[in-house]
């Protein structure tokens, strides 16, 4: 399989020149426009033992997100709210550069950026997840499992997390706490990530683009056009004008992605 992989670290200078030359002509290594994301496909309900799940294909990047919901104790300072916790594993099957072992800084940043979007965007109505105030609440575990890494894990994981939440059912009956019910989803925050390549800015960078990008910016916006989270990465910088432009683009792209996430078939596998 996988005949000619144009991977990170391999003849990077040549690749950099090539991608820059394309950019100067307004196009990209896979023919996309600067503000065009890769084909996005979402299969909800993929993992049947999860309370909700979604398999995301963003180009050749594949991420499976599972949601498990269990009973637990609330935090002392938020006795009347359920708990959200997000974890990411860069499984070593997804890339030759991922190693087994506890999550490294990349996995932790990924989990925290996805978590920030979901949490600050109030995707879940945590106040509806109280069983007994101060004593018993529902804990929602979002587990991001990266299967194939071809760039832009932030967005693939963020889409998977939101899709899995919209797919999720609270398993109340398993705990003899009444009937199961759909996890209450309030808002639909969607991240869009951009890479700075030379002086150009492209949406949804693939692995080749990521490997030569100088800076990265993720903006999470919701269905009202509000911004809920941002994360800049890498050692390059952005100008203020670039940031403004990125925020605007993230709203446009985010709106389209949101439709795909919400409109997708439920529980059927391709």
């Amino acid at each position, binding site marked *: *399989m*996988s005949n000619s*992989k144009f991977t990170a670290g391999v003849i990077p200078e040549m690749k950099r020149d090539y991608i820059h030359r394309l950019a100067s002509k307004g196009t990209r290594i896979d023919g996309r426009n600067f503000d065009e994301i890769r084909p996005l496909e979402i299969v909800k309900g*993929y*993992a*049947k*033992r*999860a*309370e909700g*799940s979604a398999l995301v294909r963003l180009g*050749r990047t*594949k991420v*499976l997100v*599972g*949601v*498990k919901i*269990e009973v637990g104790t609330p935090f002392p300072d938020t006795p009347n709210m359920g708990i959200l916790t997000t*974890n990411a*594993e860069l*499984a*070593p*099957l*997804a*890339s*030759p550069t991922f190693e*087994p072992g*506890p*999550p490294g800084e990349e996995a932790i940043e990924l989990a925290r950026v996805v978590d920030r979007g979901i949490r600050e965007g109030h995707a879940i109505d945590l106040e509806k997840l109280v069983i007994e105030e101060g004593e018993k609440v529902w804990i929602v*575990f979002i*587990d991001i*499992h990266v*299967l*194939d*890494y*071809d760039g832009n894990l932030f967005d693939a994981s963020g889409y998977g997390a939101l899709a899995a939440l919209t797919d999720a059912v609270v398993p109340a009956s398993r705990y003899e706490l009444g009937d199961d019910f759909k996890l209450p989803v309030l808002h639909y925050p969607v991240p869009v990530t951009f890479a700075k390549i030379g002086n150009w800015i492209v949406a949804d960078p693939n692995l080749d683009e990521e490997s030569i990008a100088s800076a990265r910016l993720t903006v999470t916006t919701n269905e009202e056009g509000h911004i809920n989270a941002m994360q800049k990465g890498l050692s390059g910088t952005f100008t203020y004008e670039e940031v403004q432009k990125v925020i605007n683009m993230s709203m446009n792209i985010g709106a389209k992605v949101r439709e795909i996430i919400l409109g997708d078939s439920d529980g059927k596998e391709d």
Partner: protein
Amino acid sequence: MGIKSDIRLIDDNGLRIDGRLPNQLRPIKMEVGVLDRADGSAYIEWGGNKIMAAVYGPREAYPKHVQEAEKAIIRARYSMAPFSVDERKRPGPDRRAVELSKVISEALESVIFVEKYPRTSIDVYIEVLQADAGTRVAGITAASLALADAGIPMRDLIVGCAAGKIDGVVVLDLNKEEDNYGEADVPMAILPRTREIALLQMDGDMTYEELTGAIEMAMEAAQTIHKMQIEALKRKYVEVE
């Protein structure tokens, strides 16, 4: 094995709770070459199991002190996604996963021509995305396809299969309820051509006759599963080439 219960696992017609006969396999679906980055990969659905396997290598073994001068080392890593089971599994390998990774590594090594690639590692990652019973044998079956997909030279396509005992009857390929409430489980890995046994574990309670009956049953079924492996490889390579 062996949580006591009143659950009947075999009905009056000799059928199992999912309607199978004692020596009948669950439905199995295989696909080769499902991942882009790995050197070889495969996906298997086996009953309620959904498992992905990927192979990287032969590549320089790292860290250096694990290298062997005369052969490749085989490092299989069996892992369950946190959401693959009813009660969320904490990320990271537990003791069961460490043991399974070890016996799977040893079983896979039995078919690989490791002496061809000194100082390298061949890394096999088995990710259980949805678990029913029998994940290790399904995982080995998929790993075998991923190794073939990666072009690793092997003397046979190793096959995983389990048998066991429920309600006093020797049966093939236990599902989750049968595994929970049954009396014995015998996971195996078999070289279908020579019928050699590369992995063999057992837990529960069986007489000599029951145990040997179970082993024979699994060895027969391995031939069937092997044919499916060949079909899956053909689908990939006939389509492509």
